[in-house]
């Protein structure tokens, strides 16, 4: 019988700890498939910081380091500088990358640190039970914005790809989504490019993946996928924000 589908060889047998309907599972799978297809698993070291992705070190078969909250790009920098011939990636959420770790993110990018950053943006702090994230949308209800995020008091959401695209050190910044099959296919291509860039020593590459949090958004998985289209993508447009390959042309 022909095998039509099998789990990536870069994933362990540990059951994912994510909630049902959450997109982390899809994104984790895409990263594992890309690492497998590029044949770099033996030399890859991943960094999983604090947040829903904190257990990611159990899911990938490659070497993994757990970083303090927000510090993944700094830990990845230490790994990168000590292991110039390896592949180093981080897998970070929005609170981690765009709030407590903003400085580490911006400076790893501006140094052109040759790493790959997978940024999972679900507009909420999932692990701690649904508080406002730096990417929570205006009006969005969370545990700490019970009347909806009021930009006058809680500030505006950060658009990370747009911000990092202004930095000379950023090689590649693209925002993708995984709420439809075509979007998933495109997200995988973007993640693959972000890893290929590292193999080609092009510098800092980030893929922002719009994700869902049905548990803390208070939606069914299906409603959550639709909310990505109706609410998130209008605020966080998909697309390539920086690509040094295209600039060179």
């Amino acid at each position: 019988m022909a095998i039509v589908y099998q789990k990536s060889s870069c994933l362990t047998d540990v059951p994912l700890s994510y909630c049902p309907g959450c997109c982390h599972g899809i994104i984790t799978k895409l990263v594992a498939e890309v690492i497998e297809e590029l044949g770099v698993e033996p030399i890859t070291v991943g960094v999983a910081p604090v947040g829903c992705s904190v257990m990611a070190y159990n899911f990938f078969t490659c070497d993994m380091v757990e970083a303090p909250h927000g510090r993944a790009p700094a830990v990845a920098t230490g790994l990168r500088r000590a292991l110039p011939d390896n592949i180093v990636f981080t897998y970070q959420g929005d609170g981690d990358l765009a709030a407590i770790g903003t400085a580490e993110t911006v400076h790893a990018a501006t140094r052109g640190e040759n790493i790959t950053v997978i940024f999972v943006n679900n507009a909420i702090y999932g692990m701690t039970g649904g508080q406002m994230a730096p990417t929570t949308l205006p009006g969005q209800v969370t545990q700490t914005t019970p009347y909806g995020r009021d930009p006058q008091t809680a500030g505006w959401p950060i658009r990370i790809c747009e911000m990092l695209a202004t930095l000379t050190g950023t090689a590649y910044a693209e925002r993708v989504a995984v709420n439809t099959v075509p979007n998933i296919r495109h997200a995988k291509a973007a993640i693959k490019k972000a890893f290929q860039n590292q193999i080609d020593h092009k510098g800092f590459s980030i893929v922002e993946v719009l994700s869902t949090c049905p548990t803390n958004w208070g939606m069914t998985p299906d409603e959550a996928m639709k909310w990505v289209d109706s609410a998130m993508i209008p605020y966080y447009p998909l697309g390539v924000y920086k690509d040094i390959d295209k600039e060179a042309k």
Partner: protein
Amino acid sequence: MKGNEAIAEAAIRAGCRHYFGYPITPQTEIAAYMSRQMPKVGGVFLQAESEIAAINMVLGAAAAGVRAMTSSSSPGISLKSEGVSYIAGSDLPCVIVDCMRGGPGLGGIQPSQSDYWQATKAYGHGDFQLLVFAPNSVQEMVTAVFDAFENADRFRMPAMVLADGLLGQMMEPVVFPEREIVTYDKPWATNGRHGERRHNIVNSLYLSPKELEDTNVARFARYEEVKRVLPKAESYLTEDAEIVVAAFGATSRIVKSAVNSARAAGIKAGMVRPYTLWPFPAEKIQEGCQHAHDVLVVEMNMGQMVDDVKLALECKKPVSFYGRTGGIIPSPAEVLEQIKKLAGGEQ
């Protein structure tokens, strides 16, 4: 050579090729020296965006299995405490140099020893210790850096060289001895599994209380071994000393002068100087104080080592304190006066 430069040169000679730092007075010469020398030996010098980033870069490099270090001064050392706790919790070796200045807060930029508690008792959250070496000369800074790297690797824990602004800025002759670099295998390093082993995970998270307790118990069992083999102290004229002064680091140089003056005045004074502040050399303090009727602790802080000396002596001898703080360096005359007071009290 300046103390700070001696630290940097010693680190390179001890096999360190990865330095991550952030500017702060009075330790900036370490970073400056590293930025000049590291490229010449194929090493990495990186000026980070913050102390927090610097210590996390050290975490990453240490996880990769290389000898990594950072240096800072008191306020910057506080910022690194989160990272150091993770490093300790992940059983990673690294070296941190603290060139102490006055505190708390922004404090001042003059020499101080006010990080004794931070270094020996609570450098970050959770149950952990770090090795703390307290040199008292530029020459001993070199020894301390080698000791720190070797023992950090040996016991898989962070090590600190606790210097101060005085030692860092002091210029003294220094000899770099031909010292063999002792290394230890690091089969736990996350440097790519190369298809040869199961993946390594460097981690300090244990959601199961039992598992977390087990790791803490295992780590403290390792600390017992450290306490057995590592404590080191210098005793000076203690064989017959009736008044013994305990001091560490730069202060011990001042105390030594005062002890000499006291001897010249016919007072049987001596000094004990812990070189390792953790593990604290309690037995050696006891030995040094065995004939003492009075023990005086002198520090450039408000008396942070006093409790450790009292514990070492099991509170069997009177322990008093004299110190200056805020960046003021006590003079030998001030210390001599304290010794004379204790001697006078006896007569």
